[in-house]
């Protein structure tokens, strides 16, 4: 049962990812990407990372993709105005992407022999455990990331406002 679920989710994720790349309208791309993210969230649930799955949906599907949609609509890009690259270049792009996939798979050759998971703790994905790790071992990076957000916020506001004449 679980394995079928895995196959289904993987199929959806890969298919929608491809559609993100190949669909003509940017809005369609965004919608397919959201589907991909939901599929990935499903994988997280399978992997016992329930909290992360929730955060993932909230952050990616809820915040980031909405931002994308908003920008597309604000800039009124919902038409297929994009001139395509020459065929040769598109072919080269597909070949390069495929080559990368093959090389990566080749590089990871031998991963099948990884030992099976031993004593699996099913509860590490719970909010309590994650919170303990985050605030014990990763407190400093956590605080620093707040500075990152602050600077990103300031940067976005600076860039977004009208040019000072």
């Amino acid at each position, binding site marked *: 049962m679980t394995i079928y679920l895995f196959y289904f989710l993987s199929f959806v994720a890969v298919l929608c990812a491809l559609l993100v790349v190949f669909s003509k309208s940017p809005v369609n791309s965004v919608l397919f990407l959201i589907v991909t993210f939901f599929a990935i969230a499903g994988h997280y649930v399978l992997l016992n990372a329930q909290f992360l799955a929730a955060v993932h949906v909230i952050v990616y599907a809820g915040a980031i993709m909405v931002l994308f949609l908003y920008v597309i609509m604000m800039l009124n890009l919902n038409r297929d105005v994009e001139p395509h*690259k020459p065929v040769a270049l598109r072919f080269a792009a597909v070949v390069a992407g495929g*080559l*990368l996939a093959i*090389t990566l798979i*080749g*590089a990871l050759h031998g991963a099948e022999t990884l030992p099976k998971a031993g004593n699996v703790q099913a509860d590490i994905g719970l909010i309590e455990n994650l919170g303990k790790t985050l605030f014990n071992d990763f407190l400093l990076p956590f605080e620093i990331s707040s500075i990152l957000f602050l600077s990103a916020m300031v940067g976005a506001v600076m860039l977004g406002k009208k040019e000072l004449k």
Partner: protein
Amino acid sequence: MIELVWLVPLLPLLGWLIIGLFGKRLSKALVGAIGCGSVLGAFGVSIAVFVAVAGHRGEFGSIKLFDWIQAGDFTASFSFLVDPLSSLFLLIITGVGFLIHVYSTGYMKEDEGYARFFAYLNLFVFFMLLLVLGDNYLIMFVGWEGVGLCSYLLIGFWFKNTDYNKAARKAFIMNRIGDLGFLLGILLIFVTFGSVSYESVFDTAASPGAGFSNNAVTTAICLLLFVGAMGKSAQIPLYTWLPDAMAGPTPVSALIHAATMVTAGIYMIARSNILYTLSETAMTVVATIGILTALFAATIGIFQNDIKKVLAYSTVSQLGLMFLGLGVGAYTGAVFHVMTHAFFKALLFLAAGSVIHAMHHEQDIRRMGGLKKYLPVTFATFFIGTIAISGIPPFAGFFSKDEILAHAYMHNKFFWFLGVLTSMMTAFYMFRLLYLTFYGEFRGTEEQEHHLHESPKSMTVPLMVLAGLSVAGGFLGVPELFAHGAHWLHGFLEPSFERSAMRMYTSHASHAEEYAIMGFAVLGAVAMWYLAKKHYSEPDNVPAEDDEEVNPVQKVIYNKYYVDEFYEAVITKPLNRISEFFYGIVELRFVDAIVNGIGDTVKWLAGIFRLAQTGNIGFYIFAMVISIVVILFIKIM
């Protein structure tokens, strides 16, 4: 009291810092007060130190301030050595220095670089004190270089004049040559003795059985150190900078180029006396160079017409005499002569400065004459200085010169003979100077005559004090001949020279001989006085103008034996030629060709490779992905 000796160099240093940093914003009166006050303070401490050293025998030694350098086995502490020799030098430097500072407040009054001048002077005093106070060769070297720097700055003080700048550079370069010798000497000392501190070096060298007596290494050290002394104290062959150094303001000539800095070489040898005592060869070299310089400079002095140049050659000559004293083992005599020379030569220079001041920067004695009635104080003090330098008793010069000559007589009769000859020539050119300047008719322009005036109090008072010292200074070292124990200085300096005294064979001349030596010198000096008076009182005998024909011998000497031209032809020109060769062929054809070639190749390659920067982001990403693929591919192969 001697623990406070660090105050002595500190005060001038503070003076330099204050004047140097804030001089432009302070009033001239305040600058003068700080400049003089700091040296006066140092003088006060020096007196206290001197009294402490003189009063409590054996209670002196080195005072460690802090660890300076520590590297592996090598340590050098920043310590001051207080002993009779250094305390005497302290007194000379700060005392004469103070008088010259006071004099400068008058002499430099109109100068726009007033504050700068005092800053340099204070800095000079600081370095000079460091030079004599250090308890190892490294500190001495720091002071040595520092005074060289100040000398350079002060010779070129009026830097708008190109000739003065050239003179400053000449002094600096000549000193560099000597300093190289000094530095090599210090390194050799370190290699040989494993230390640079006087105490350990001299103890090791003097210890019996250590094998440093008449050893090639000892001789090499002494000769290298002497090369340094040659540069700093203007001995053959490095003396030509000193006469040119007269480009600086006259107080500078008095302080640096007569009384203190140029005697650093004598101090250094007197300090290292044991090393020289151990090497007979070095002693002979020192004495020979000394007497040759003395004689050579004296002959040039006879025909010079610039009042300061005469005094400059006289200084070179007197320094030569001091080296003769060192070379024949009369360490006390040499230091004694340093002291008396500081008095009367500073006096002569300052009096000359007063004359130049009155004459509105005219220095040619052919334009002077008859100044006696216009400048009575200057004349009187100059007269005293002349008698003192000529060695006529009971003035200061007589006693110190006599001591050197007596030792020379015991050592080598020929040296003595040349010494007496030098001494007679000294008397001759000094009285020539005196008569040409102060007697006869005034030969300058009417305007100059109209403006003739006695210098202000700030200038004449130092002159009078120095004149007093020139009269009385000699009584510190009255020969044993006159009264037993009368040679106070000898007893005072004994601890500094005791290591040498133990191994020096001292024979005393018989009383008759000593009287003869004295009588001979005095008679010679008086005869020269008479001769100069007779010759130069005649108005016809004023020296010829530069463009008049004179006999060839006189012409050669007037042009200083063409030594500068000789150096130019033998050293400077070939060096320039070699430089041109290296520049034209080696530098341009080889070094530049390689360097520029590499640059051009890179530029050419860059010109090709930069075409890869198309500016197309898609292309960059594509290149990146392909590169990742290639790298991973190589990795898994």
